[in-house]
């Protein structure tokens, strides 16, 4: 083990790994209780069947599929935001990319797990493996999520390697784990070239994979002829909603870890301001797609569509619909649009509001349509049972718990990227900005080889 002096001021990023405070154990204990509730609820469902849930005919999808779509949506926080910022060479990305990438990997596992919950009997998943048919968008989902999960894991791991090597050399714990995962990293020029190349390939690859995943999730709905689902804009509508909720989830985690691990020097107000602007932009985009979706249905006035439309606007689901509109548009508009409210607290409240609003959006896409199916069935209703509530709490608690555990094993802020920013990028950015600007008169023409 070597002295941590070489790390300079960034040594504080290793502190959460080396030291564990009382707050960590209390939070972990609370989250563990949530997970325990989920485990007990699942045990009940496993032994007594799906009859213990509020699922019925015709409302055969409820909380589980809502959570599936919501978690897969949040997964866009990481890979997509991180990859886009990395490719755009946005220097302010450095302290936030790791947090975003971890969100992606964890929620993908939890989101996919919700499908197993919805199956009732998990052994039925084996039928998909043995007899799956690629005409079904459900199988497109399984394939694209597998690709996204693999790509996200790799995309999380690659930028972790130099930091794992720092831990291997400086940490007193988990030496075998760090030595294994560091892959012999010594920071040589050739190793850095290899790693940079791989990260660049992955950054390019994960963007289309991420977009395809949520487009395919939307196909599960839009490929049917159900009222409210059969829409050509569902793909981009879902992708926009996913990025929207992903940014909001990232901001929430940034605020929590900034306070818990005293990262004020790394996660500065400017990072929240920039993400707040992104969130505001996504709020406008989300409103645009929602407006386009509903105005088209209203103008067409197909009787089956209108039953679902009025159920959302004035009927049984009006409370959820208008809460969604307030949470996803009115609150972010107010808190992020007015400079006086655009503080870290304001941005945090807007982000929590967006996460709640996007969960409600997923819920009112799924349940009102199933309650008013196109087939001549009696309208149904859906009331989630305590088992479903338990599993929902369990999923969210598990997400928080796994995130905390990750932060106790690996640095939650990329140490080498911060050092790179400090030591190299400051000079590089100046050169880059100069290259964007017009040169002295005649200089550009001369550079292109045209005689003066």
């Amino acid at each position, binding site marked *: 083990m070597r002295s941590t002096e070489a790390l300079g001021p960034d040594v504080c990023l290793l502190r959460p790994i080396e030291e564990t405070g009382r707050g960590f154990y209390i939070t972990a204990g609370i989250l563990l209780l949530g997970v325990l509730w989920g485990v007990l609820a699942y045990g009940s469902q496993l032994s007594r069947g799906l009859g213990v849930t509020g699922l019925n005919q015709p409302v055969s999808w409820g909380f589980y599929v809502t959570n599936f779509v919501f978690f897969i949506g949040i997964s866009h926080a990481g890979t997509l935001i991180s990859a886009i910022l990395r490719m755009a060479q946005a220097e302010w990305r450095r302290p936030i990319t790791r947090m975003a990438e971890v969100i992606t990997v964890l929620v993908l596992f939890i989101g996919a797990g919700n499908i197993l919950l919805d199956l009732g009997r998990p052994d039925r998943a084996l039928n998909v493996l043995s007899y799956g048919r690629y005409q079904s968008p459900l199988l497109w989902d399984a394939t694209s999520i597998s690709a996204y999960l693999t790509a996200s894991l790799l995309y999380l791991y690659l930028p972790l390697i130099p930091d794992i*090597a720092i831990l291997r050399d400086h940490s007193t714990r988990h030496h075998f784990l760090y030595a294994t995962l560091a892959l012999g990293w010594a920071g040589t020029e050739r190793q850095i070239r290899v790693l940079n190349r791989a990260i660049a390939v992955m950054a390019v690859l994960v963007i289309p994979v991420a977009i395809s995943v949520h487009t395919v999730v939307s196909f599960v709905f839009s490929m049917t002829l159900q009222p409210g689902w059969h829409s050509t804009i569902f793909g981009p509508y879902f992708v926009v909603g996913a990025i929207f909720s992903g940014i909001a989830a990232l901001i929430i985690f940034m605020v929590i870890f900034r306070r818990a691990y005293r990262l004020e020097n790394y996660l500065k107000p400017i990072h929240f301001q920039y993400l707040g602007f992104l969130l505001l932009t996504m709020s406008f985009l989300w409103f645009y797609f929602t407006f386009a979706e509903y105005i088209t249905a209203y103008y067409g006035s197909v009787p089956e569509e209108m039953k679902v439309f009025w159920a959302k606007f004035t009927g049984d689901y009006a409370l959820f619909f208008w809460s969604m509109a307030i949470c996803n548009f009115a609150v972010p508009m107010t808190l992020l649009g007015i400079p006086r409210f655009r503080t870290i607290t304001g941005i945090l409240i807007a982000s929590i509001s967006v996460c709640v609003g996007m969960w409600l959006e997923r819920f009112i896409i799924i349940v009102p349509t199933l309650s008013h199916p196109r087939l001549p069935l009696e309208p149904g209703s859906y009331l989630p049972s305590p088992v479903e509530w338990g599993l929902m709490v369990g999923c969210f608690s598990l997400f928080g718990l796994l995130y905390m555990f990750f932060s106790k094993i690996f640095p939650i802020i990329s140490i080498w990227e911060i050092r790179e920013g400090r030591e190299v990028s400051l000079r590089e950015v100046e050169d880059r900005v100069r290259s964007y600007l017009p040169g002295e008169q005649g200089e550009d023409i001369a550079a292109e080889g045209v005689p003066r």
Partner: protein
Amino acid sequence: MKERAQTPGGVRAAQLAILVLIWIFILGIISWIVGLLRLSLQLGDIPSASIGISLVAIPVFLLLLGVANYVFWGLRSAGSGEATSAPAEAERRHER
């Protein structure tokens, strides 16, 4: 990180085990996709859908496998040389 850490046998074995697991995982998914494609061809069950998706999905998984291998072997074989603190600095030196 000025010098390369000695790699004990246990660590090397664990690294190889991870690489083998990645191979098994990705080849397992590819075999699953190919299996579904074969089944749809045998049953005449709209194989065009399976062919279309296989043509997109299999190259993506192979590319991921390629990146994983490139990093595993690339980092091992490139472990000797002068260490630098920042990747961009190394890129610049290389360009010079």
